């Protein structure tokens, strides 16, 4: 926990995965941030995930 506290005492540089809203919020606060365009497999669509899984057996 103490390490985590220390993190926020430093100048923060962020790599944001996924939701762009977090990226935009940090940008507004002028915190250096890089956005990585990431989505869960099949964008979270369970049916497609299951179908794709059958081909990977």
């Amino acid at each position, binding site marked *: 926990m103490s390490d985590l506290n220390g993190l926020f005492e430093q100048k923060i540089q962020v790599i944001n995965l996924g939701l762009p809203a977090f990226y935009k919020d940090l940008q507004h606060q002028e915190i250096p941030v890089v956005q990585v365009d990431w*989505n869960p*497999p*099949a*964008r979270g*669509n369970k*049916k*497609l995930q299951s*179908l*794709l899984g*059958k*081909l990977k*057996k």
Partner: protein
Amino acid sequence: MEIDLERANQQAIEKIQGGNPILKGIGIAGEVVPGMDEKLILHAGPPVDWENMSGPTRGAVIGALIYEGLAAGATEAEELAASGEIKFEPWHEHNGVGPMAGVATSSMPVWIVENTQFNTEAYCTFNEGLGKVLRYGAYAPEVIDHLKWMETELAPILKETLANLDKPLNLKSLIAEALEMGDETHNRNRAATSLLYRKLTPALLETSFKTEQKKQVLEFIDSNDHFFLNLSMPAAKAMIMAAENIDGCSIVTTVARNGTETGIRVSGLGDRWFTAPAPVPEGLLFSGYSKEDSCADIGDSTITETVGLGAFSMAASPAIVKFVGGSVEDAFNFTRKMYEICDAESENFKVAPLDFRGAPTGINLLKICELGITPQINTGIAHKDPGIGQIGAGLVQAPMECFEKALEAFVEKYAE
């Protein structure tokens, strides 16, 4: 069924990369297109009946029936089209492609493109120019007169022109060169048309026709930046045909729209269509029109995207955003994003602004479903009502539903 997916896809990629489309010649659809007859009308996209046809497709059918002399006017043409006497089938099921409504009938002249490496042959009608033209659903008397001129003057002159060439035009080389000159050969064909003009003119001047007739043909080609589109499309079709029907292959071999539905086909699933309602493109509309006037996505020209051209090569064609909308950065990003759903980079078509990286090629159904990224398309926009014509150009994405249905069928065939 036991399959080696990776190997099957690799085989398809090799077929696409190795394709060598050349301009073999010009013929009459009824004489050269397989299965063509006088009562058959070919159209763009997946199968559709008269009742469900989009406005532009209906308009083009009306025009085609008048052109063929099967109907005297629009009312008679509509009655005939609804009577069941006329058959409607996709161009794709007859080894061809048609831009926008893509309507073709037996008397129309067609380009014949041969993929000499894999012995496939593809067909496409001639490009009529922009504005009020049959492919956008216009059927006024001047549209029909123009089609007749294409049949009786343009086609014979160009046919003799091609016969005068020392060797057939290599379309792969010409497209590759046009890409380096800022085309993507779907919605920007200015460089490709210019290159074609340069190649054809000396041979055209040697034909036996009158000077006035030759001049008219040269002026027509010169005035129509999209003239080459109807060659880049069958070139792409002839290339991708070699990659069709490979067992276990998840490469997408067709993306096509008829203004009602978008349909796709996948190599390992043969001739089966997977369809979804066609979305309406966003874009730049001509003055006086709004999105409410737009027809849903239409045309077979997305065949270009299946071999890495069109929106997949938009980074090679930054100026196209002036025609289809978006920013230059968007054009770059479309190409970058398409690498994610493709299996290869083209050995033939290079994107100069990306340091000559090969265009994203070989759309993989499984990657689309895994990443939730669907193929980017740039397109002309037709008015939703028959008889009006083009109202703009824009951008659209193939609907995910097509790919979800195809994945289900793919798993059913190969994993269960």
